């Protein structure tokens, strides 16, 4: 019962901060709302007893990515005046596109349910870092390595972009 | 010997802009050296003098508050000649002369004396030129061993004879030590 109440409070908080992120005019405020949203999502992970995921979520998203986004917003001094006003059509299309994406994700998550069930029946703590590490580096070795290659490519791309802009100057 | 090899302190060091090696650029050796130097200071004698409890000794040539001296019979030396006022570069000294009356021979040594003798301590720079100029050995800056105290009124800094003249007890003590 109490777990359910916590979930409802957390879910309401997540949705509210997510909504405020989109709605608020000041980019700094919306970034801070997003940080709060990330924290509440980490709370959701904790409710699944996924300690590793929740902490990594905080480290990576709240601790690194959002700091960098805040950093850029502060450096560029974005105000509501110079924010380009988008027309209604693009807003609607964006909403539809994200709705569809959400639908696809929901479908995949429903499909993963049986896999979790098999882990559940095995009786071991499938959220512990030891199990997670073994699964990642044995069963899902190839996707894991591909993810690292993807990150490497992104890194090289970023370096290349910054190098190019200096050579033009 | 050329100019850039002279080292007066003997501790001159040639500065070079050569590129640091990887080990040097980690700064570890340099930091360790610095740490050794600072930890040595931890065990050194502290130089602080805890003032109200502990007072620094006056140097024998310290120049503090002026003192108008008395001779061994307790008579004031000053004859109000005005040499000190003339010598004073800060123009801090003023005085009024008066003639010694009958029966005041035990107070003043000569026929003329200073009835008013004032030093403005805000003007005084404690150079000691009044002491140099005085022909009668009447004014001294090294005798009182007192620092001029701070005050919140300008008037309080004008010291009259009540503060400047040597106290009688001191003169009596001096004459005793001479005898």
């Amino acid at each position: 019962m109490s777990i359910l109440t916590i979930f409802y409070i957390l879910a309401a908080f997540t949705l509210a901060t997510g909504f405020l992120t989109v709605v608020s005019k000041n980019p700094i405020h919306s970034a801070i709302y997003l940080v709060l949203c990330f924290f509440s999502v980490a709370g959701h992970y904790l409710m699944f007893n996924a300690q590793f995921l929740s902490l990594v979520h905080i480290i990576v998203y709240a601790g690194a990515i959002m700091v960098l986004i805040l950093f850029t917003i502060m450096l560029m001094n974005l105000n509501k005046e110079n924010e380009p006003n988008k027309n209604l059509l693009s807003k609607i299309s964006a909403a539809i596109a994200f709705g569809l994406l959400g639908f696809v994700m929901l479908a995949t998550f429903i499909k993963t349910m049986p896999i979790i069930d098999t882990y559940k029946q095995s009786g071991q703590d499938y959220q512990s870092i030891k199990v997670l590490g073994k699964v990642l580096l044995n069963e899902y070795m190839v996707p894991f390595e591909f993810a690292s290659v993807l990150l490497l490519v992104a890194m090289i791309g970023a370096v290349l972009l910054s190098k190019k802009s200096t050579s033009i100057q | 010997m050329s100019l850039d090899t002279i080292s007066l302190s003997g501790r001159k060091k040639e500065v070079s802009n050569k590129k640091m090696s990887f080990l040097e650029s980690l700064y570890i050796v340099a930091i360790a050296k610095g740490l050794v130097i600072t930890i040595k200071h931890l065990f050194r004698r502290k130089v602080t003098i805890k003032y109200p409890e502990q007072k620094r000794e006056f140097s024998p040539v310290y120049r503090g508050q002026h003192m108008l001296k008395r001779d061994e019979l307790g008579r004031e030396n000053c004859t109000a000649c005005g040499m000190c006022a003339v010598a004073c570069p800060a123009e801090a000294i003023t005085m009024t002369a008066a003639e010694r009356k009958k029966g005041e021979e035990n107070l003043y040594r000569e026929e003329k004396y200073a009835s008013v003798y004032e030093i403005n301590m805000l003007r005084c720079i404690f150079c000691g030129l009044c002491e140099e100029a005085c022909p009668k050995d009447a004014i001294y800056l090294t005798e009182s061993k007192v620092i001029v105290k701070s005050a919140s009124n300008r008037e309080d800094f004008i010291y009259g004879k009540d503060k400047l003249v040597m106290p009688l007890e001191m003169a009596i003590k001096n004459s005793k030590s001479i005898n």
Partner: protein
Amino acid sequence: MDSAIIIEKGIFITVIFAITMLMAMYSTWAERKVAAWLQDRVGPNRAGPLGLFQPLADGLKLFSKEEFMPDTPNKFLFILGPAISMSMALITSAVIPWGDTLEIAGSTVVLQATDIDVALLYVFAVLSTSVYGIMIGGWASNNKYSLMSALRASSQMISYEVAMGLSIIALIMMSGTLSLREMAAQQHGMNWNIFYQPVGFLIFLVCSFAETNRTPFDLAECEAELIGGHHTEYSSMKMGFYLFGEYAAMFISSAILSILYFGAYNYPGMDWMAENAGANIANILGIVVLFVKICFFIFFYMWIRWTIPRFRYDQLMNLGWKMLIPLAIANIVLTGIIIIIADKL
């Protein structure tokens, strides 16, 4: 949930909170004393014996100062800044094992608020969140110098977090756990991690200096160039919270340094003590040993502060990205090779 456990943990957390506050308070006193001693002075000695009431006088002074609020677009964020910085400094103490177990009235008391599987990650998560205290405060001050220092501080902290994370990976590979309690237990006796991971320790030490914004990496404050950094617009106890948070963070990071690398509550001859004087006495001695180690590291922080001048900004970034990160990666590779060879033998 068992109410006895809740009460036990509640008391324990309160005690730890009080100790952290006390240590932070007396760190301010110790800082001034150490600074004075290293410069051949005596330091604060007027308030009470040896100046021991100085922190109280400082606190009173900060409380009685004018509470100044700048013309800022968001007053809430302005107050939130120091609050985050303080709470983030304190929240880490939840996973730190302050000692082994104690037997009190027939029940075993674990001297740790909570023993989670991923304690080390928790520490890093809190660490990476603590940037917001400076950043939000700096931005909400509505002052360009505060903003500049907030940006400097956040970029510095992010850069050094990378090197810090990499330096700790070698240690994790060696110990095979993320739980601080297990890590402490593995360093039983004199089997401290510093003997196996000297390079990792060095990198971690440098990074923890950068993470707590202490000299030589105190570019966030930078009195000379940025007035007072993100403190500029703060006054009264909000300012006090920033300063206090810094000292609390110093205490916590000293605790983590001594737990990760200097054997936590372990000391040579602890088995002998446990046999001859009883487990309780041996474990209480362990707590004392841990606090001695922590105090040494706090002293070390101060020692460094009064020895080395501040790094220039480009030197800071060069050190972080071009020296420490490659060194940390080399350390990981070396540790991996040694672990494989040791397994084969």
